[in-house]
């Protein structure tokens, strides 16, 4: 019980520190902006640990953060193999193929006004559909290994990236395009020097949405058949064996991989679209 009291005490102290930091003169500095969510997350973890040990919650319901940490440390090779199979082979390969295809199709669509008017509303609608449902079909077509997972990811990321890229190619202003025309720039030159750079903020918006979808697709597809490795496979079998710390370890890896993936895309975005107002603000 004392553990629970200590955890609640820690929570209150952390909250007070956060409030003070948020109101302080340094609340806009970078260090504080990072420190506050870190303290918040830490407080949640401590509270979690305190509740689980303090109230004696059985491990089947919710393992304590320390036992999840132990499971991560004890299963590193397994976690790594699953990470490579699901994230790198299934997710990343599909993400790259799907995004590249979407950008190419967007440039093609942009040249044909008929396609643009017709395909864009359809693309918008398809982007809102539960596309994960094609997973069983892809598994039938491409087999159990990572190729079918990559195929699901390709279709899932294609439409959000396509819709955003087509919108992005529209983003340059009439005046700017006219200026390019007065300089005698060809279609290719205008595309390369003006319209593609102008489309980048839109493209990265789509790429960020797609980065989350890619992992969801890769993991869901494993429910429809997979070789005996991969994160989705491991989670469903470990749940069956009630090896819950291992399940949470996989979840932690998925969470870290998802956040890192998103962070990397955001980092590249910062480098590519450094000129955009949204990037200059901070």
């Amino acid at each position, binding site marked *: 019980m004392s553990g629970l009291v200590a955890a609640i005490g820690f929570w209150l102290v952390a909250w007070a520190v*956060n409030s003070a930091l948020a109101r302080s003169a340094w609340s806009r500095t970078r260090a504080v902006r990072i420190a506050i969510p870190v303290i918040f997350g830490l407080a949640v973890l401590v509270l979690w640990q305190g509740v689980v040990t303090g109230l004696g919650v059985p491990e089947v319901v919710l393992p304590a953060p320390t036992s999840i940490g132990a499971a991560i440390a004890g299963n590193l090779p397994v976690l790594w193999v699953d990470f490579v199979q699901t994230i790198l082979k299934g997710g990343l390969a599909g993400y790259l193929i799907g995004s590249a295809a979407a950008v190419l199709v967007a440039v093609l669509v942009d040249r044909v006004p008929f*396609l643009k008017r017709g395909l864009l509303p359809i693309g918008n609608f398809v982007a809102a559909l539960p596309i994960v449902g094609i997973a*069983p*079909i892809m*598994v039938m077509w491409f087999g159990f290994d990572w190729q079918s997972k990559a195929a699901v990811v390709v279709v899932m990321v294609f439409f959000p990236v396509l819709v955003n890229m087509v919108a992005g190619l529209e983003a340059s202003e009439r005046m700017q395009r006219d200026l390019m025309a007065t300089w005698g720039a060809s279609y290719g030159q205008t595309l390369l020097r003006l319209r593609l750079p102008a489309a980048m903020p839109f493209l990265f918006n789509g790429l960020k949405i797609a980065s989350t979808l890619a992992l969801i697709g890769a*993991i869901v597809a494993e429910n429809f058949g997979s070789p005996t490795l991969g994160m989705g496979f491991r989670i469903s079998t470990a749940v069956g064996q009630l090896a819950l710390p291992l399940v949470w370890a996989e979840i932690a890896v*998925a969470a870290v991989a998802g956040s890192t993936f998103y962070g990397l895309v955001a980092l590249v975005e910062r480098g590519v679209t450094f000129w955009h107002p949204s990037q200059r603000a901070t």
Partner: protein
Amino acid sequence: MRNAGAILGVLLLILVLWYLGTIWLNAAWVYDQAARAGTEVGWRDLVFGTMAQERPVLPPPHQVLGELWQGVTSYAVTSKKSLVYHGYVTLTATFWGFVLGTGLGIVMAMGIVRSRTLDLGLMPWAIISQTVPIVAIAPMIVVLSNSLGLGDQLGVSNRLVSKTIIAAYLSYFPVLVGMIKGLRSPDPMQLDLLHTYGASVGQGFAKLRLPASVPYLFASLKVGIAASLVGAIVGELPTGAVEGLGARMLVGSQFGSPVMVWAALFAAAILAGVLILVVRAIESVVLQGMGVRS
């Protein structure tokens, strides 16, 4: 609707490509059969042979629509074979997840707009929560709601509880983001005016911030309901569910029946379209009632 012609044109193009793909992908089976029977395959045999296979690689659109039609009309609504029944099961989880997620999103947005500590502390975690592939957590949530017996206490099945939680998890974020934007949308001049009237924080919230956020809220609700449906379907996959559109897909893939999977997929797409239309209709009624000019 000046785009209607172009949309129809593109749809027609997709249909033609689909039929060509059907012939191309299913041809192997026709040739296989002909080789066994020792007959030649003419192009007529090829076309007709690929259109009505038991287990096609790619079923043609009319076969999928036929299965869909049969699934909707030829069984009683309560039958386990009826797609209406499975759609209803998925719809229930979608609806409750949507309600829960929307409520959570609005409450969190109110807290974040009100408290700077929450803004700085909670918002980064809300963003991180969306980069976590939810499906990884889905089996976990099933175990949790089973062992806690949440469903028994609420008088519904545990499966519905877990699906609802997953749907809510996916749908709260768009609402949160839209609501924050909406609650912050009144400009300083309007806030100052209320201040000079001596309005309290609560009054300013009820009379200015909340009404101003409604258009933003509806924009997010349209994204949220689609996300909620995805959550409900995904939630059915790892839970060993036997009812619902997601379960239909799983069963179809296990029994090697592609037509069944495609029919469930189409049913889910139609459901998504209908749900978005419903939200849009409510939006136009509410906005008109509030006097927003469109």
